[in-house]
């Protein structure tokens, strides 16, 4: 499916803006392609295509990116919840079912089910890195590491 590549590229660019993590950090999780498929499966190709097209327009449109993101994507009734779900997908590793109001308005996919996407997605959740720690139950830091001050401690 060679025509997926540009969309995946845009999906990663969008994810960088939404998560605050760099492209290298996101690619390092190994989850980008799986998450692309997860979102597309849950909201459908039409919504996914529009989300990515809108993001291309926003990112090439100049002006304040945050304002444009809020106006055209996060504040959009059809795209906003998808974008927020994309953030929580990256941070937690879970897909959360779209709200009933959204499903009533824009359609229901059998893949739109609240779930941990995979054992790996849990371990790659960005929330652990954001909190400057490791996923509970994985990526063990080693004996006694917890007795050391955290990186930013002033003590």
């Amino acid at each position: 499916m060679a025509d997926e590549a540009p969309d995946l590229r845009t999906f990663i660019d969008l994810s960088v803006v939404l998560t605050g993590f760099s492209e290298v950090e996101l690619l390092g999780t190994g989850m980008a392609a799986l998450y692309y498929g997860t979102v597309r499966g849950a909201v459908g190709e039409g919504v996914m295509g529009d989300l990515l097209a809108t993001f291309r327009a926003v990112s090439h449109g100049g002006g304040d990116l945050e304002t444009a993101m809020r106006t055209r994507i996060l504040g959009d009734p059809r795209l906003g919840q998808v974008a927020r779900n994309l953030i929580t997908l990256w941070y937690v590793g879970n897909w959360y079912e779209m709200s009933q109001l959204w499903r009533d308005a824009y359609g229901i996919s059998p893949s739109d089910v609240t779930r941990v996407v995979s054992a790996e997605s849990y371990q790659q959740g960005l929330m652990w890195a954001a909190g400057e720690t490791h996923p509970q139950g994985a990526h063990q830091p080693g004996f006694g590491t917890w007795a050391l001050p955290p990186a930013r401690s002033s003590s």
Partner: protein
Amino acid sequence: MMEDYDVVIVGAGIAGAILAKVLTQGGRSVLLLEAGTATAMTWDGYLSNLNSFYTALAKVPESPYPYNPDAPQPDVLAIGIPGSGYFVQDGPVAYGSTYTRTAGGTTLHWLGTCLRMLPEDFELRSRFGVGRDWPFAYGDLRDDYGLAEMEIGVAAEVEEQEYLGITFPKGYVYPMHKIPQSWSDQVLGQVIDGRSVDLDGRPRELKVRSTPQGRNSIPNANYRYPKGREPRDGQDRGYRPVGAVDPRPRGQDLARDLGQRCAGNSACVPICPIQAKYNALKTLVHADGDRLTVRTQAVASRVLADPAGGRILGIEYKAYESPNSPAYTTQVARGRVYVLAAHAVENAKLLLASNLAGTSGQLGRNLMDHPVLLRWGLMPEPVGSFRGPLSTSGIEDLRGGEFRAARAAFRVEVGNDGWTWPTGSPESEVLQAVGQGNLFGSRLRAQLRETLSRQIRLGFLVEQLPDPANRVTIDPQYRDAIGNFRPVIQYGLSDYTLAGMGAGTMLAERLFQWLGMADRTNAAQSLLSQITWRNQLFLWGGAGHFAGTHVMGSTPASSVVDSWQRCWDHENLFAVGCGSFPTMGTSNPTLTLAATTFRTARAILKDLEAYAPASGSAPTGEERRP
């Protein structure tokens, strides 16, 4: 009558495993019946449990251990939801704890805290006029505590654990040096250590004290194994930690090569990924495999007794082929001595279903837990939350004193896992920041970076007295998939316990002020149970410390088992575990459970002296010989 085994044990948790190990090493044949599956007994099975944890939406204590309708277990998510779950909660308060029915038992997801009970905890009635006395004293159990600390592999320093009357034999050292205290413990200690609060009219000094833990640390070279308990190499000096286990011949290497030190996975509950934390399978794998038969997927359903004289003749059990099917066959296990080691609730249920051990009228009664009052807040600076074992320290100085005549004592567990327990953090923090905070991008990341590392949670484990009204019963209308009874639970919190929560609340407010910690305790962000007392709302949860259902005592009129955990009504039947505890004090009970099990093992070996070893020949069926 044909006696196939010297001893038939029901339940492959820590008590059953200790008995199986001691009795088989003592030359006796043992049949161990386990209601659940044997998944965790092999390393690949254990990894499948780990995978279940990773993929579980709610990472509750049971999440790695799949629900089995043929041996159902309570579920944290069902507590307080009428009509759901394994327990039939008959109120007035929903019992807040759970356990797991699979080989290894609840030690698969215990925290690992190994505090000894205080000497005064054994004498609550005579010293403070409340509760019950144990039929023996701390001094009588002191050597058994040593055996329990050896078996579990406890990491601690004696000099930090001698307080409120706890004594150790001269020269005693714990098997391993203490687990390092977390950075957040150290920050709290810098503020709290040496400060005092008033108790019994006098200042009582506080200390953020290292918690003795059943997880592998640096072995103490000065540790000396008790006589006759040396490892296979015969050397009694220097503790040898036991890592991950697998009963297959090559699997034995794991114990040496994996899980030799805690690596800070921060998931002791629900599952330690490397088995650096003790679980009962470590004990079971060291039983004498030639004398031990483990039969899993075998649910004891009835204890069969001779109507004249009360001797136990057998244990009827339902053997099922698959947790996915209610098909089973009924079989009977026979031995000379029988031991119920199935859990406080399951032991009581089984005896009630068999209409046995009823003389005192106490069977099923006096159900206790440690209701845990939770308070959480945000430290002014990052303290490195979400790192290390889930708890490495506590405040133990308020566990004892004359005040116990009037209100419950408590210990304070200092968490290392942020607000995971009360709020489901960090997931809940992400959902909140994105869903209500409308944050995204670098500001979202910065917000989480700013807050997660400052989260602190304190748990106040409050004592509960034995109350006959708190009880487990059975009712023919409530049964599981294969026709066994579901426990019906009546439970409440007394004024004595609630007053302890009140004292805990006042201490919490004081500690938060000392620490400059913003109080974020909030009912709306929590799934905890709620109870209001004297206009104060307490948010609390169960500790998983079920106790008291077949209370131990010094007379058959007032207790179900004697000081050896032998049923007064049935000379060849023992009921072991926390169900025998007359009171529980404020210590997490597993260490004391293990100590009392060693005591009972001695009594059983003595009983069996009159007999030559039984054959231990295994009837047909699925067998496992670790």
